[in-house]
């Protein structure tokens, strides 16, 4: 007999997209692995869900948000297409100039990058919508500063546009937006920590997780592959040497 606390022990038997509030949604099973086992285990659908508005809330630029996305961005989808067309990444309203050699260093070839700058917030949202509708990019990264009141329909609109395709859509917003309502089904807060990143789960299709998840991440794994300095007594080599070797990739 079924207990009142759990009327159906496994609701996914009824329909794959059903889940209990105490479970993580696993219905879609089409998540793109984030490249971090610990993070995948905490994300619904075992990875970044494509075709969904994903919000990453940052206290400031450069805390490690791109390091977090590195595995998923560096991995171009295996398709029969010619290389320049495979896995394009659109960067919309990037806060600084994108350094193509740096991205190449990260594993993203320069030919995959597309940089978009719009003068107005409305133009930026329009451009994001077009990119999502065309569904020809692997990922869209959009930097969205604080929205004015009444502009929240834009987020909903972008989320609907994202659902039409398979583009990974990350919206990077300031941490102060955490209190504002958002239609995004996945909202994470990022905070830099020593040699890594603290990920807080603000909203996800699954149970509430109070404590944040620590992911060990270095600014660039190439710190280790650095040209061996002549003077080995520099403090930097010590810091680099203390890294666990399995994080090098």
């Amino acid at each position, binding site marked *: 007999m079924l207990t009142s606390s759990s009327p159906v022990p496994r609701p996914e038997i009824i329909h794959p997209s059903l889940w209990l509030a105490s479970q993580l949604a696993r219905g879609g099973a089409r998540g793109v692995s984030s490249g971090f086992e610990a993070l995948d285990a905490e994300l619904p659908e075992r990875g970044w869900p494509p075709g969904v508005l994903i919000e990453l809330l940052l*206290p*400031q*630029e*450069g*805390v*490690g948000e*791109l*390091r977090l996305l590195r595995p998923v961005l560096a991995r171009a989808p295996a*398709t029969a*297409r010619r290389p320049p*067309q495979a896995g394009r990444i659109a960067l919309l309203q*990037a*806060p*600084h*100039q*994108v*350094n*193509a*050699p*740096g*991205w*190449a*260093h*990260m594993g993203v070839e*320069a*030919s995959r*990058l*597309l*940089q*978009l*700058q*719009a*003068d107005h917030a409305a*133009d930026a949202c*329009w*451009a994001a919508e*077009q*990119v999502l509708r*065309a*569904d*020809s*990019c692997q990922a869209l990264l959009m930097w969205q500063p604080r929205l004015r009141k009444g502009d929240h329909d834009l987020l909903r609109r972008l989320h609907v546009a994202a659902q039409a*395709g*398979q583009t990974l859509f990350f919206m990077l917003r300031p941490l102060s937006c955490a209190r504002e309502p958002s239609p995004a089904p996945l909202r994470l807060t990022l905070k*830099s*920590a*020593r*040699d890594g990143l603290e990920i807080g789960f603000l909203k996800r299709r699954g149970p509430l997780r109070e404590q944040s998840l620590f992911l060990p991440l270095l*600014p*660039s794994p*190439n*710190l280790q*592959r*650095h*040209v061996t*300095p002549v003077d080995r007594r*520099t403090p*930097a*080599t010590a*810091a680099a040497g203390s890294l666990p070797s399995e994080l090098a990739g």
Partner: protein
Amino acid sequence: MVFERDRVSALTAPARALGVHEGMRRGGVQLLAPQAHLNERDILREQTTLQQAALALLQYTPQVTLAEEACILLEVGASLRLFGGIRALCRKIRVTIARMGLSATLSCAVTATGAWLLARYGYVRTLSHRSLQRRLDRLPVVLLTAARAHLEWLHGLGCRQLGQVQRLPRAGLQRRCGKDLLAMLDRAYGAAPEVHDWIVAPPTFQARVELPDRIEHTDILAAYAQGLLAQLAGWLTARQLAIKKLRLWLEHERGRQAVAPTELQVALSVPAWQEDHLHTLVKEKLARSSLPAPAIALGLAADELESQQAASEMLFPEPGGSAEDHQRLLELLVARLGADKVQQAAPRADHRPEVANRWCSVMQSPASLPASLTTDAARLPPRPLWLLAEPLPLRMQQHKPFYRSALEFTSPPERIEAGWWEGRPLTRDYFTARDASHAYYWIFRQWRGGEWSDEEPQWFLHGLFG
């Protein structure tokens, strides 16, 4: 209300409600409907409009011809499969006609003359020979232009419908009314073959539309441009061409305050012929441009053309969209944001970071740029993901560079010394540094008075590791 030789020849429903009817004289109309707009019928303009509509309809079939009484005949037998059946095709044709700013009654039948008769009677779609016969039998004789001269005689005989005329003895009918009537009937019923002179698309394309008023709003202009683009699409399809560059011009008031026409160029990176795509581009272009004066006419010309490249369809379509889709997206983005705001990376092999990081517009083909040497990225020392447009000078605090908090070095220095061949020698020591909140930066040290002078070096922030 439209007049022809001082008699009403066409009128709107509200005018009819006021008691106006066809054939009424001008005086009577002015008495009944004093506020009505009275226009003289312009046969020439009617003809041009029909020609334009026929040109636009070349999108759907190469066999288009004009028929009597403002009809356009299309032979669609070969187009049904391409456009997804007769219903889908009718829907598309209706959309095209509406975009031209016209309205039409659509009828389909297995014979062209039959379809022509049905269209003038009302919206009828017959697909089999038998249903066509049944429909035709019930049509009024008036619709048959060859029978107009003998209308009273036929009505006197009690023949009001085509079916009744069909039952009359043929020999007697031919003697009384001539060959034309019977020939037309035979063609309509499919008993005689039909011959048409199909419209041939002109060798060059240029279209122009007069606006009904002086218009300032670019949105409304875009709607009128749509009619022109529909013609362009028909012309391109008929001639198997794709457009690379199109020119739209807006004519302004002539006379004393004459203003030169405004010209808008829309350049496409990849030739296209799809009407919807061209329309979105033109719409964005119009929305971004400002008019010096209200426009009174709109023109469109095709400047650069190429032959159409058939798109290869894949057996299993990939989810990411085709390369053509991406090109279309890029053009759309360029049309609204501007060519300099949609950029692709074209990194250069140079040790100076600001020189190596080069971006160019997506409209430029990467092949046209000076060749960039591909250096093995993994062998280089760390490079940041963001580069500041201008290096930011940092102040020092307790002999450490300071940005938000004191920075702590996490890498050995990397010396970049280059640019002497351009007369701007540059000597910098780059470090990876970390601040108190564990964000990583790329900073460099520059010696002001040479490396061995006593002066303190100046520190700059140049990049961020995202």
